[in-house]
């Protein structure tokens, strides 16, 4: 398949000697959006970190845009088009919003103006220090900063975590706009499936480090029973989880 952007095959990886991912395989085409689902501790974040080269790989293969990732250092992966927005956001606190963006800009299709159009709220706060932003604004800045590297594939790790409902709505609109243009593929990690499955083409469900589902998102939407079994969030599953999850359930 020449059009595959990302091919992961039989991936075994973890932190140090502890193996978190045991045999994960999936593919993603250019411009596709994929939901990465699974309960806490199932290896979602580890999978993203592995794609960025921040974990220890014990086996398997990763190819990105036809290039073998395994020997590529992290900064090359980022320049090759893998944009990672970690859960911790990690904004530079004493750089301004604008400086956070220009510090890493590579001069691709994403200019400051284009970012300001997508995140008007950031434009308003462009002279503020990164440390003065609210959680939602930090999240937007983290996404915007990843865009400045002109990614082909954006890895978003629970972007809605801990954000106010209004901000969550705004972020969803933004993510939808990014995926709709078709020139940006996205892997979106989210605790709660309901909000992101309609936004994505494909879904990958992890359970104890293994991929238990890899296929169309639609199939999962139509089969809530199966999804329920894996995630335990709809119906009688354990309560709690992220704010976003509670929002989705109408609790917040």
């Amino acid at each position: 398949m020449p059009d595959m952007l990302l091919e992961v095959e039989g991936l075994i990886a973890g932190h140090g000697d502890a193996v978190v991912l045991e045999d994960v395989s999936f593919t993603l085409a250019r411009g596709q959006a994929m939901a990465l689902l699974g309960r806490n501790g199932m290896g979602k974040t580890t999978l993203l970190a592995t794609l960025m080269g921040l974990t220890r790989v014990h086996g398997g293969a990763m190819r990105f845009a036809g290039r073998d990732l395994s020997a590529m250092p992290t900064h090359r992966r980022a320049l090759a088009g893998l944009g990672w927005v970690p859960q911790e956001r990690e904004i530079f606190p004493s750089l301004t919003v604008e400086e956070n963006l220009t510090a890493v800009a590579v001069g691709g299709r994403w200019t400051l103006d284009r970012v300001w159009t997508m995140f008007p709220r950031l434009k308003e706060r462009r002279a503020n220090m990164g440390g003065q932003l609210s959680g939602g604004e930090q999240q937007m800045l983290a996404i915007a900063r990843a865009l400045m590297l002109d990614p082909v594939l954006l890895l978003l790790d629970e972007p809605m975590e801990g954000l106010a409902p209004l901000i969550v709505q705004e972020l969803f609109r933004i993510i939808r706009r990014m995926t709709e243009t078709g020139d940006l593929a996205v892997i979106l990690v989210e605790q709660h499936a309901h909000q992101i499955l309609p936004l994505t083409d494909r879904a990958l469900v992890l359970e104890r480090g293994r991929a238990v589902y890899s296929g169309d998102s639609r199939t999962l939407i139509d089969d809530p029973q199966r999804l329920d079994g894996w995630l335990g969030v709809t119906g009688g599953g354990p309560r709690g989880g992220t704010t976003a999850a509670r929002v989705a359930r109408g609790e917040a």
Partner: protein
Amino acid sequence: MDSRSPKPAAAAATPAPGTVDLAPLRRASRPRWPELAVWLLPVAAWFLFPEDLALLTQIAIMAIFALSLDLVLGYAGIVTLGHAAFFGVGAYAAGLLAAKLGIGDPLLGLLFAAAVAALAGLVTAPTVLRGTGLTRLMVTIGIGMMLFEAANKATDLTGGVDGLQGIEMTPILGLWSFDLWGKTAYVYAVVVLLVLFLVARRIVHSPFGLSLRALHMNPARMPALGVSVDARLAAAWVLGATYAGIAGALLTQTTQFVSIDVLGFERSAEILLILVLGGAGRLYGALIGTIVFVTLHHVLAGIDPEYWQMWIGLVLIGIVLFARNGIMGAIDPFERLLARKKTEP
């Protein structure tokens, strides 16, 4: 709307793909009026202290040296106690070029010293950057000590503890020769300081400079943002070495002599004191720190020739305890206020 192609109206203002829009950085690096006041100081000093031009020249040279440490420590966050190594390498490079090869052109000497110091930076970078924290600090001290001993041993070349003599400088650009009163030397040093300062200013406001500051805050995050930490730190290290080398060369050229203590540990420690005193990571801290330190040194040594170091120590402890970010750090809140007012619509 296809967001891939910019709107026609915005097209003119949008930079071509493959380039970074540097307009905001240029805005940030535009000079502001308080800066002008700082640069009037050397002009004022010329008229106010015509008898002390030699000391004022030393201040300008020290300021360049402090600036070089600011690039390494203040921006790249590499703590070093061996920075005199590059100052000394530059000093000897310029000295040997003039004394042994008979090339006394000052600007050529600066270029040569800069190149040699840069090379020294390049060679030492992998060793220094390999470790972190205390390890790194020890490596920098070790490099400084080794160079000092090398210069001490190679008496044929360096003159050892007697120093390197026989340095003759030709007029700058063939126009201005070094005079007995040190007028040319002073103007020369100040002009070189100004040029190097403007270049440094440009660099720290560039994406490269911003990435250094970002790296300082969160090194673990940088690779995933497409930045190779080692490469950036090495670049800053080499840049700092080059600046230090030019400072050393200036000292050689303006005094026409190289003493072995250009490589001394005390010089490394002193420049660190100066930078911390002035405030690291803000360029002007290097200038203000140098002026305050050398002036204090001068005045205190005059009042109390025996125990002046004790008073300097006292002042330093006071500064680091009560003004964490040095003298310039105390100005920061006002500056931020000023900056905010300006950007508000």
